[in-house]
C-alpha cells in the first residue's frame, strides 16, 4: 500500500517537472523578442524628435507673422471706428428734423392702416394694406420714392372715400356662400348689392352681408330707385342694428313666466269678449221685452220673470215677491257666471309679472356672484329679462281690467233690471 502511494507521487512529480521546464523555455524566448521591439521603438523615437523640432520651428514663425498681422488689423479697426463715429455725426447732422418726420410717417401710416382695414374701400380689389404695413413696421428710413407712394396711397384713399363707385367684389352672403357680385359703394358709409347692405370684414377680406338689414323708409328726392341708407359712423350703427332685439326676441326674454302671462292674458281676453257678446245679446233681448211687457218670451231672463209674475199676480204681495225672488236668483247666477274669472286674471297677471321680475333679479345676482360687477353687460341682460315680465303682466292686466269693467257694468245693468226694476215695472203696467 505504502509502496504504491510512493510510486504514485514519484510519477506525478516527474510530470510536473517536465511542464515547468517547458514554461521556462517559453519565457526566455519572449523576453528576447520584447528586447528587440524595444530597441526598434527607441530608434523610431529618436528619428521623430528631429521632425517635431522642425514642426515647432515652423509654428513659431507662423505665430510671429500672425501677431504682426493682428497689430496691423487692430490699427485699422480703430481707424474705421473713428471714421464710423464721424460719419454718424455727419448723418445725424444731415438728418436733422427729418428724424422726427420719419417717426410721424410711421405713426400716420399705422393709424391709417387701422382705419383702412375697416373701411369699405378695402374691398375694392387692389389692397394697399401691404403698403401701409411696410411703413408702420419698418425700422429702416424710407426713401423719397417710398414716401411718395405713401402720400399717393393716402390721397387715393381720400378720393375714393368721397366717391360713389360700382365694382365687382368678393361678397359673403348670410348663408356663408362666397360669391363675386357687382357692388355699389357710397363713400365709406354704405355698400349695397341686390338690395342688400354689406359691411367690410378685414379677417375674411370680403364684404359680409348684414344679418339685420337697415330699413329704407321714405324717399327724399321723389324716386325710390336710388334710395340709399347711409351709416355716418362707418358701419358701427349697422352693427348695433343687429343688437337691437325684435319684438319677438323681447317676448322670448320673458322666459317661462312670460309665456304663462301671455297665455293667461289671451285666455282672459277671449273669454271676456265671448262673455260681453253674450251679455249684449241678453241686454238687447231684455230691452225688446221691456217694450212689450204683455207678451213674455222664454228666450230672455226678463221674459221668464214676467211669466212667473203673471202666474202669481193675484197672490199676496209678500208671496209674489218670494216667487219672483226665486226665479230672479236663477237668472242672475246665469248672468254673473264667469265674471270673477276675468277679475281674477286681471289681478293675477301683474303678480306673475312681479314673480318674473324677482326670478330675473335672482338670475342677475347669480351672475354677479359668479362674475362680479365688473361687466355691466352681463347684468343688463338679466335685468331686461326681469323687466320684460313686468311689462307683459301690465300689458295683459290693463285690457283685462277694462273688459272686466265692461262685463260687470253690463251684467249689473241686467241684474238691476231683474232684481230692483222688474217688480215695479210690472206693477206699473198692471192698472
Amino acid at each position, binding site marked *: 500500500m505504502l509502496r504504491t502511494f510512493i510510486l504514485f507521487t514519484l510519477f506525478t512529480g516527474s510530470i510536473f517537472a517536465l511542464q515547468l521546464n517547458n514554461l521556462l523555455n517559453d519565457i526566455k524566448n519572449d523576453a528576447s523578442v520584447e528586447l528587440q521591439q524595444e530597441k526598434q521603438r527607441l530608434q523610431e523615437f529618436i528619428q521623430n524628435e528631429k521632425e517635431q523640432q522642425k514642426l515647432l520651428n515652423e509654428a513659431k514663425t507662423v505665430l510671429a507673422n500672425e501677431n504682426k498681422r493682428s497689430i496691423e488689423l487692430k490699427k485699422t479697426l480703430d481707424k474705421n471706428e473713428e471714421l464710423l463715429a464721424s460719419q454718424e455725426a455727419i448723418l445725424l447732422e444731415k438728418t436733422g428734423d427729418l428724424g422726427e418726420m420719419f417717426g410721424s410717417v410711421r405713426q400716420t401710416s399705422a393709424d391709417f392702416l387701422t382705419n383702412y382695414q375697416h373701411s369699405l374701400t378695402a374691398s375694392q380689389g387692389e389692397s394697399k394694406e401691404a403698403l401701409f404695413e411696410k411703413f408702420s413696421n419698418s425700422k429702416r428710413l424710407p426713401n423719397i420714392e417710398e414716401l411718395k407712394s405713401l402720400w399717393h396711397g393716402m390721397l387715393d384713399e381720400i378720393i375714393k372715400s368721397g366717391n360713389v363707385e360700382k365694382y365687382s367684389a368678393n361678397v359673403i352672403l348670410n348663408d356663408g356662400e362666397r360669391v363675386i357680385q357687382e357692388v355699389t359703394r357710397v363713400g365709406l358709409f354704405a355698400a349695397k348689392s341686390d338690395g342688400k347692405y354689406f359691411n367690410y370684414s378685414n379677417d375674411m377680406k370680403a364684404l359680409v352681408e348684414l344679418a339685420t338689414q337697415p330699413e329704407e323708409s321714405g324717399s327724399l328726392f321723389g324716386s325710390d330707385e336710388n334710395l340709399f341708407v347711409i351709416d355716418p359712423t362707418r358701419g358701427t350703427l349697422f352693427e348695433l342694428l343687429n343688437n337691437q332685439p325684435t319684438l319677438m326676441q323681447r317676448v322670448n326674454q320673458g322666459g317661462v313666466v312670460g309665456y304663462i302671462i301671455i297665455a293667461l292674458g289671451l285666455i282672459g281676453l277671449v273669454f271676456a269678449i265671448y262673455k260681453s257678446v253674450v251679455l249684449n245679446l241678453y241686454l238687447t233681448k231684455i230691452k225688446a221685452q221691456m217694450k212689450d211687457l204683455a207678451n213674455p218670451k222664454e228666450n230672455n231672463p226678463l221674459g221668464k220673470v214676467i211669466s212667473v209674475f203673471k202666474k202669481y199676480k193675484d197672490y199676496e204681495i209678500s208671496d209674489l215677491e218670494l216667487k219672483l225672488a226665486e226665479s230672479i236668483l236663477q237668472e242672475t247666477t246665469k248672468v254673473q257666471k264667469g265674471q270673477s274669472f276675468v277679475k281674477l286674471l286681471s289681478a293675477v297677471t301683474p303678480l306673475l309679472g312681479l314673480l318674473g321680475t324677482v326670478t330675473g333679479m335672482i338670475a342677475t345676482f347669480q351672475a354677479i356672484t359668479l362674475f362680479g360687477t365688473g361687466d355691466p353687460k352681463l347684468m343688463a341682460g338679466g335685468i331686461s329679462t326681469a323687466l320684460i315680465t313686468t311689462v307683459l303682466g301690465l*300689458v295683459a292686466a290693463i285690457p283685462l281690467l277694462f273688459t272686466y269693467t265692461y262685463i260687470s257694468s253690463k251684467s249689473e245693468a241686467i241684474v238691476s233690471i231683474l232684481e230692483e226694476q222688474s217688480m215695479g215695472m210690472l206693477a206699473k203696467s198692471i192698472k
Partner: protein
Amino acid sequence: MLGLIFDDFSSFFDKGGVVLYVVFIVAIFLWTLLLDRYIYLYHGYKKYKDTLLANIKIENFESRFKDPIKEYLVEESKQKLNYGLSFIKTLIIVCPLIGLLGTVTGMIEVFDVMAVQGTSDVKSMANGVSMATIPTMAGMVIALSGILFEKRLELAIKYQIEKLHIDISKVM
C-alpha cells in the same frame, strides 16, 4: 309766450316716450267723462227729475204695489246718475298701472343702452331714465286728481238719490 309753452310741451312728450301719450289719452278720457257727469248732475238730471215727479203726480198706482214702484223709479234714476262711473273708476285704477308700464319700458331702455355702451356714459342713459320717471309721475298726478273729483261726484250722487227717495214719497 304761447310758443314757449308749446315748445316745452312737445319736449316734455319727447322725453316721456310713447307711454306718456297713452297716459295723456287716458287723462283726456277721464276728464271728459268726469266733466260730462258733473254737467249731467247739475243740469240734465234736474230736468229729468222734474218731469218724473210731475208724471208721478198724475198717475194713480194700485196701493199694494206702491213700494216696488217707488223702488223701481229710484233705481232707474240711480242708473242714469251712475252711468259710466265704473268706467271712470277703472280709468283711475289704470293710470298708475300705465305709469308703471312707463317705468319699466324706460328701465329697459336704460339697460339696453348699458348692454351696448356699458356704464361709462351716464348722459346716454338719461334718456331712458326720463322715459321711466315722467310717465310714472304723470300717471300718479292724473290718478290722484281724478280720484279726488270722482269721490266728490259719488257723494253728490248718493245725496241726490236720498233726496229723490224723499221727494217721490212726498208726491206719491
